[in-house]
């Protein structure tokens, strides 16, 4: 493939467009990044150069094209330690409770129900590591599910771009749990091995699962209508052991949807405990 050409003015225009619409800051020396992300798009749009792309963007009715440019440059909106507070609560409040409650078996079952490209399950895995559970002889059964095989494969590989590791990941954890592989960062093999990634569509029948101590089902319910939300929460109530914990997204709750959970609030964070 012949690399598409573009003038400095064209790249300056694109950098400004991207910053104004997505707040992604691209310096002049990051021209390669624009070429990599937008190059394939030029071919699809039958444009010969970045100058032609800019000319098209400056013509009337360029809204959809503008959108495609932004989508090509911005990555999927997810991050490590998304919202931070729930993960603080998990580490400082819920893990100590679980250590106490499950000390007889020294076994924990954890399910991350919307693993997407892996940021959330790996965040949980890093916390388990930081708490030293495995070193203390605990067995952690950790399942992460998603409905897309494509994102599951990405998650299994544990490869993240620079833009992705910039999002929410404390730098000591980057140093501890990642290797640099080419231009990307890969979660170390021993951490990847902690998570069993499986395909699961929440709308369909759920496979048999062990009784869960903790379920993370964050930013999932928002996509469903009220009857489906109720159905999922009802199934979760049967999947989580009495006294076990459910983490939902910041804007989600079990309120008016399920009577099987009680709210646990610590500071700015909330989770839900399966009633006994």
């Amino acid at each position, binding site marked *: 493939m012949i690399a598409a050409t573009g003038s400095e003015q064209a790249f300056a225009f694109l950098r400004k467009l991207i*910053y104004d619409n*997505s*707040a*992604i*800051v*691209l*310096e002049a*020396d*990051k021209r390669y*990044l624009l070429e990599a992300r937008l190059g394939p798009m030029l071919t699809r749009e039958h444009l010969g150069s970045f100058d032609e792309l800019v000319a098209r963007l400056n013509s009337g009715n360029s809204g959809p094209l503008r959108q495609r440019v932004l989508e090509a440059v*911005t990555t999927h909106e997810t*991050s490590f*330690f998304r919202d*931070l507070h729930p993960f603080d609560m998990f580490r400082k409040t819920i893990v100590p409770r679980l250590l106490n409650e499950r000390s007889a078996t020294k076994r924990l079952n954890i399910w991350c129900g919307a693993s997407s490209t892996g940021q959330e399950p790996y965040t949980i895995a890093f916390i388990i590591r930081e708490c030293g559970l495995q070193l203390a002889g605990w067995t952690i059964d950790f399942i992460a599910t998603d409905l897309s095989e494509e994102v599951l494969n990405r998650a299994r590989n544990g490869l993240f771009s*620079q*833009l992705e*590791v*910039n*999002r*929410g990941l*404390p*730098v*000591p954890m*980057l*140093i501890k749990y*990642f*290797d*640099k592989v080419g*231009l990307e960062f890969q979660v170390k093999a021993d951490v990847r091995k902690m998570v069993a990634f499986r395909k699961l569509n929440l709308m369909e029948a759920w496979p048999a699962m062990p009784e869960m101590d903790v379920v993370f089902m964050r930013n999932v319910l928002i996509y469903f209508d009220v009857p489906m939300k109720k159905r999922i929460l009802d199934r979760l109530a049967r999947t989580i052991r009495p006294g076990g914990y459910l983490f939902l997204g910041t804007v989600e709750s079990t309120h008016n949807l399920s009577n099987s959970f009680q709210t646990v609030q610590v500071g700015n964070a909330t989770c839900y405990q399966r009633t006994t």
Partner: protein
Amino acid sequence: MRALIVDDSKTMRRIVGKVVKENGFEIIVEAENGEEAMTRLRDSSADAPVQLALVDWNMPVMDGLTFVKVARAEGFAELPIIMITTEGSMEYVTRAIEAGANEYLMKPFTKESLRDKLVLLGFETPI
């Protein structure tokens, strides 16, 4: 709140300043290199302290890594410092943290990723 932005690029100082202002910092102090940044730090008074430093790595006169070491050695032990740099190797990241930087942001970065770093450092930012 007062933030110190250290970068030899005026454009980067402006962009970083804009994001930091959106996240609750009212006053932005700028410096073009580490030496100038140390002068700004020493000049800052107890009743108007610098509460955050955002520092580029590659700068003339005094680079960002040296700035971090000098600031820590001169007693600015509690100042949260974020390195913002194009350097993306694990070796550089590790060197920055060992020198005393609290966080590390690789360019190019998004407004959200800088906000994430502020949250990690304990700054309450508007959603």
